[in-house]
């Protein structure tokens, strides 16, 4: 350890209670490989604010922001999907032609099917509508008013239709008659699951299968009837361990969770109207809550026999949290919640 870091450590040690232990350790640790070559820092370069010996203290809490990340991709804005379709049609115009005989051998059923389908849709791509990228009329790549080609549901329907339409044995039956009830069950292609679930329709805020496109956060109702993130005081343990313990104490063991990292992602300070006197002779003037980030992998919250006196819970997205929590709390927590 060189002189510069010793100076830092001495400064940190002399600063008294204003620097916590982990910060003091951090100061004496090497920051990066570059720090090994650190020049000698003069004593004035580290400005540690002086400590004022006061009898005021805060109650320290650990909060847990338990979240379920988005499960599916988001809906595209109509402008985005129109742009993507436009680019795909441009690609049809500029790309080299499809290498047909690399994929379909001549005089096979697959080749016949290919010929029939290309006559219908004019292009190898199956999700850009009826459009031909070559020839005199390739410039006509814009959609008309009310066209549905850029809609993702329409594209999915077209892809499924194309996959199901394998043609009949004699090969000259129109595809419209194929789509009738005579189709075998084996030919049915599985439809994608709906993006809006039953919980969405019922607005079941206790369900984890609601709002699949967005991050859901666990909010609980405490003894005083306020909606907050689960929190508790912590003693001789680290924030990370405390977060794990609080999850078990509040929502039971029926959850598979992961506490992300050792550092808090935000904090909330609540000042009491009149100070409390603690056993150790300090004036407790408020409470500070440090929020740890956690992810839920599986399971569900269960408040039965919880040790924190919680009465209710909800899984909410960011916009809904704003309406539930009080204003001061919202201003402290809003920046650590993901937009999506």
């Amino acid at each position, binding site marked *: 350890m060189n002189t510069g870091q010793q100076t830092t450590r001495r400064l940190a040690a002399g600063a008294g209670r204003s620097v916590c232990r982990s910060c003091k350790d951090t100061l004496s640790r090497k*920051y990066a490989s570059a*720090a090994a070559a650190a020049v000698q820092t003069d004593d004035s370069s*580290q400005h*540690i604010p002086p400590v004022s010996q006061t009898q005021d203290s805060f109650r320290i809490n650990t909060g847990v922001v338990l979240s379920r990340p988005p499960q599916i991709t988001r*809906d595209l804005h109509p402008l985005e999907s129109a742009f993507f379709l436009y680019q795909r049609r441009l690609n049809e115009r500029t790309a080299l032609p499809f290498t047909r005989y690399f994929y379909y051998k001549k005089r096979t059923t697959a080749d016949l099917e290919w010929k029939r389908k290309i006559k219908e849709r004019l292009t190898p791509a199956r999700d850009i509508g009826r459009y031909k990228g070559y020839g005199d009329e390739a410039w006509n790549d814009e959609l*008309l*008013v009310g066209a549905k080609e850029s809609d993702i549901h329409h594209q999915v329907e077209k892809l499924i239709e194309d996959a199901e339409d394998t043609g009949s044995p004699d090969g000259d039956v129109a595809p419209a008659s194929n789509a009738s009830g005579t189709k075998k069950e084996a030919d049915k292609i599985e439809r994608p699951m709906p993006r809006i679930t039953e919980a969405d329709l019922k607005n079941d805020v206790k369900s984890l299968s609601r709002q699949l496109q967005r991050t859901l956060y666990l909010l609980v109702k405490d003894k005083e009837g306020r909606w907050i993130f689960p929190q508790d005081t912590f003693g001789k343990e680290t924030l990370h361990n405390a977060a794990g313990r609080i999850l078990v104490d509040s929502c039971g063991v029926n959850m598979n969770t992961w506490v992300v*990292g050792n550092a808090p992602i935000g904090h909330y300070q609540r000042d009491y109207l009149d100070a409390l006197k603690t056993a150790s002779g300090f004036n407790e003037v408020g409470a500070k809550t440090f929020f740890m980030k956690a992810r839920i992998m599986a399971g569900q919250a269960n408040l039965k026999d919880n040790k924190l006196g919680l009465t209710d819970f909800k899984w909410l997205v960011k916009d809904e949290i704003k309406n539930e929590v009080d204003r001061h709390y919202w201003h402290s927590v809003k920046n650590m919640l*993901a937009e999506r």
Partner: protein
Amino acid sequence: MALRELPFRTASTLLRDARPAICAAPPASCRYASTEAVKQVEDNSSFSIPPPSEQLAKTFDPIARSRLRRRGGKQLPPSRYQFRPPKYYRGPLHPHQPPPVSDPASRLFVPGPFSLPRLEQTYQSTIASDLLTLTYQHYPPGYRAPKVTQRLREWQGDHPYFKNRPLRPPRGKGDVLRLLTPPRTFRNIPKITKVTLHSMVPLAQSNSAYLHIAGMALQAISNVRITPHKARHSVVQWEVREGRFVSATSTMEREDAQHFLSKLIDVVLPRIKEWKGVPGSTGDGSGNMSFGMTPDQVALFPEIEVNYDAYPPKMIPGCYITIHTDATNDKDARLLLQAIGLPFYGKLKG
């Protein structure tokens, strides 16, 4: 549907009030000298004009209109009014300049993007913020970072040749200048910059079909044209002779790289029997990770599987996959790759 709105940044740009908040609500009696004049010039906005009637929109047929216009051969030939970019660039002073590459009329235009990849969305919504939390480094208030000394050497002496010369590298052979890791902020979270596929086929020296088929396979799974490479030296043990084409690479970026990685992680790797993971010893010390796949494993890619018979037997190549990230060390890069679903095994390097 809040999600159907424009991306946050775009929306905020549009909605932001450029004026300071104090002036946001002007008094109603406020008058400007130009108010009357503007009213006289444009008495109605173009937005107030209703769109064409529904009947007109339904019957509109651009092809028929164009045919009608061209009927009788009265129209000028396209070469007289269509812009064609010059084939060769003749310098900045030439009157005929090519359009920018982003213009669809340009010869160099490459269309895209065609989609918003799922991996990209997951990265933005979940992985990036988790990585920031995991790699957070706390600095106490009042901390100032130690100054970094110059790692390169000055040119000493008063020779005029030394003036403004670039600095000299460190002395000695073994001392490599490692990348510096800046403090982690929300601006420098590691992300994937590109993915490179590399396949070496020494047999191609005697039979060039091997290289053609390796190129076809790489192009099929990567969606990018390959670049063939010559051997730079003769190596007897590998039966490589200098100057012969022996390998092919393809480099994917942006959308192609994202789609390739999600295909690899979700479809191909789970189907490999007894795959242990990416060896923990990989990494070049500056955030690039690479691992190999055997010919059997390459054949599991859906693009190859769909017409497996089109490739001659035993000619599908193995390949190396290199994932380039903008992390500055192996530890951060490994964290990113683990977050997107690549497991590592064995002793971890770095």
